[in-house]
């Protein structure tokens, strides 16, 4: 079975983000880059499927040269090869990213594609849906349980109120992976050394995009305002509770 994984390299969640002086982006110099954590669930699920069904796991990522490192990290976990779409000089938004990834996926004729339900940097959660749309496939997201029997996938997704939705989908399908789907393995030392010699092909963004252009125009980045200090209400519990209710009603105006 030919399994595709969509992967994005994102700043480590502990990175202290600094906005560039021109306000058009973030300073990348000191960022530690990692595989988008939700994409790790996707890699893991793909590897588990391969272990059961055989075949090949191919990692596809659209990004600058550094994104190759994230691909290599996935190869070290056990994926077989990688494709990087070089986005140098391209205006990248969820739309163009989806167009490029779908273009690469089409050439590979995957039978199933796993992706993280969203990337933790911009949290758009748009790309996997866009890829499914461009391929003319269904998608299911966020998925917290996955099973495959023959050519039919059974997927569980949470819905509001704590209930679960069970969905059956015939392949091909794009699966958006949620936390809890699995426990991603980490690369072993031999895995890391083997990954060095696994192939990573490079595609040109311009060839995949054709005349398509970004739909989002970033005007400015800014950091969220710093949280204001909290207020401690002193006194006996009863009086303090009464005061808290008063403040919530009169000052915060939330009740």
């Amino acid at each position, binding site marked *: 079975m030919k399994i595709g994984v969509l992967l994005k390299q994102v700043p480590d969640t502990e990175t*202290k983000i600094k906005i560039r002086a021109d306000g058009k982006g973030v300073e990348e110099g000191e960022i530690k880059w990692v595989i988008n954590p939700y994409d790790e669930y996707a890699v893991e699920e793909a590897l588990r499927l391969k272990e059961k069904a055989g075949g090949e796991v191919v990692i596809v990522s659209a990004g600058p040269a550094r994104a190759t490192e994230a691909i290599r990290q996935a190869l*070290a976990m056990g994926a077989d090869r990688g494709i990087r779409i070089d986005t140098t000089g391209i205006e990248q938004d969820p739309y163009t990213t989806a167009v490029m990834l779908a273009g690469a996926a089409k050439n590979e004729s995957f039978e199933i594609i796993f992706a993280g339900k969203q990337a933790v940097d911009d949290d758009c959660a748009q790309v996997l849906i866009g890829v499914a749309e461009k391929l003319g496939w269904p998608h299911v997201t966020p998925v917290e349980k996955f099973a495959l029997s023959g050519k039919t996938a059974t997927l569980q997704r949470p819905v509001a109120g704590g209930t679960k939705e069970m969905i059956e989908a015939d392949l091909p399908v794009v699966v958006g992976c949620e936390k809890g789907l699995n426990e991603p393995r*980490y*690369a*072993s*030392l*031999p895995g*890391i*050394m083997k*990954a060095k010699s696994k192939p990573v092909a490079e595609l040109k963004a311009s060839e995949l995009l054709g005349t398509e252009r970004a739909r989002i125009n970033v005007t400015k980045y800014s950091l969220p305002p710093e949280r204001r200090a909290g207020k401690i209400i002193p006194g006996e519990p009863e009086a303090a509770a009464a005061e808290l209710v008063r403040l919530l009603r009169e000052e915060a105006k939330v009740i």
Partner: protein
Amino acid sequence: MPSPSTIKGGSFLIEPTVSADVFIPEELSFEFKELGATAARFSTREVFSKAEAIETKEPGLMTSLLKAAGEQGLLMLEVPEAYGGLGLGKVASTVIAENITHQTSFSVAFMCHTGIGTLPVLYYGTDEQKKRYLPRLATGEMLAAYALTEANAGTDALAGKAKAVLSADKKHYILNGEKMFITNGGIADLITVFAKVDGEHFTAFLVERSFEGVSCGKEEDKLGLHGTSTVPIILNDAKIPVENVLGEVGRGHKIAFNVLNIGRWKLGAATVGGMKRLIELTAPYANQRYQFGRPISSFQLIRQKIAVSAVLTYLTESLVYRYAGALDGALSKIEKDSPDCAKCAVDAIEELAIEASIAKIFGSEALWQVSDEAVQIFGGYGFIRDYPVEHHYRDCRINRIFEGTNEINRLIITGTLVKRAMSGRIDMMTRLGEILSQLKAGFPEVDPSLSHAVWIDQVDRLKRLAVYLAGVAVQKYTTELERHQATLAVISDIIMDVYALESGLVRALKVRSPVFEAVAVYAIAERAPVLAQKARQALVNIAEGNEQALSPYLKALERIVKFVPANVDALLETVAARVLEREAYD
């Protein structure tokens, strides 16, 4: 990757250093950094999360963690591919050593297994012995220990009483004796044991714990490292098959001391991780702890403690990677298939004995100072067991004792240098002659157009100081030199700091980072006057109150050293600002 040329041990003192020959961590490949990331992840998620259970020696836990490390491939790094390992060198091993340090007891057990536990077979085993043991050591199926010390033979290891006698059928050696303070002793399956054949010929044996007559005594109650197993190994008519003799009968001392060389560098590498972990605790704490309505990280005395901790980490890191790069450079030239490949590897390790001792002393003392400052930064909380720095302070104390005390290692540094100078293996005498004539004619100047020329010059001066002082000591004490341990130790201190300061400066100049440059310059500015004063006192002692003898010594000293003023407060502030902003060393 590691430097192309083979570096002679101790040559940094007498020959100009080629920057390209100094491997720095910034030159690590992507894969090697990934090895480190895997080690760090394993160390935090699998090990540190179980710190409490490890420290109370939950039965079986340390063993299962080491085996889990084996499954991740963490134990196979240095084992050759032919024996089921990855065949990687010392640079890769340094990356692992410093990243596996989140739980100190585990870190020590890990280092013991992969270092002094596994390496004796790796470097001295026959092909048959390697086939029998290395694959199992590489996966963690077998755990390893190293048993040299005895109750009355610590530093004086060759004074051990453990005895081996060949059995009548010549199939076994019968071992009797008791080895003390054996790290991993209670969990090891394979122990390299040293005993004297017929009470005379010091020999290494590969002893399986399951062999008849081998047992271990009760766990020691220690100051620190409560999670590691430290026991006596008791040999009571232990039957060791003759094919388990490691190396040659009567040549065990070579194995014992050379394995310690490796152990010493590994210990230095692990202290780098220890210091980084402490900074990861102290920097955020200093930012969060408020006194007088401000975070204590806003006070200069606290900022300087954080900065000095980072400086010590940087210097140790610089020198252990330099050592590892140099050793990998030498090892990479050895034909892997040649029959004496292991012997060449052993020679390469022995060649860098001075540098290994430096890594051990410098790292252990740096970590000691950093852990002490960590307690101080935490204040009263630093003294309380529920807070995370108290155990570091206890746990790191042993580093100055095991793998050769820092005292014996200080004697080794100068002793090895002098021995090699005398035998002509290292051309120190020519260099000494040059320095003596330059004392009159003047020293060559460092090209002033070079960046940081004045600090390059300071390091050159300290090198001359070490060679000069060693020369004076040899001339004065001749065959009695060994007895004058205090003088030898002063010379060692200068040699050691030269290696550390130069490694730090070369790295800063290669990377061109303002923070690295501040660190390197601060370190030189701070250490140079201290070393000059130590040397002055040593010369006074050597003169033994004879003013006529002292006067030329002091004149020479005044020419060799030169005070260069630097605003160290400003330099430390550059470092502190950086570390406190990132709340981490890296």
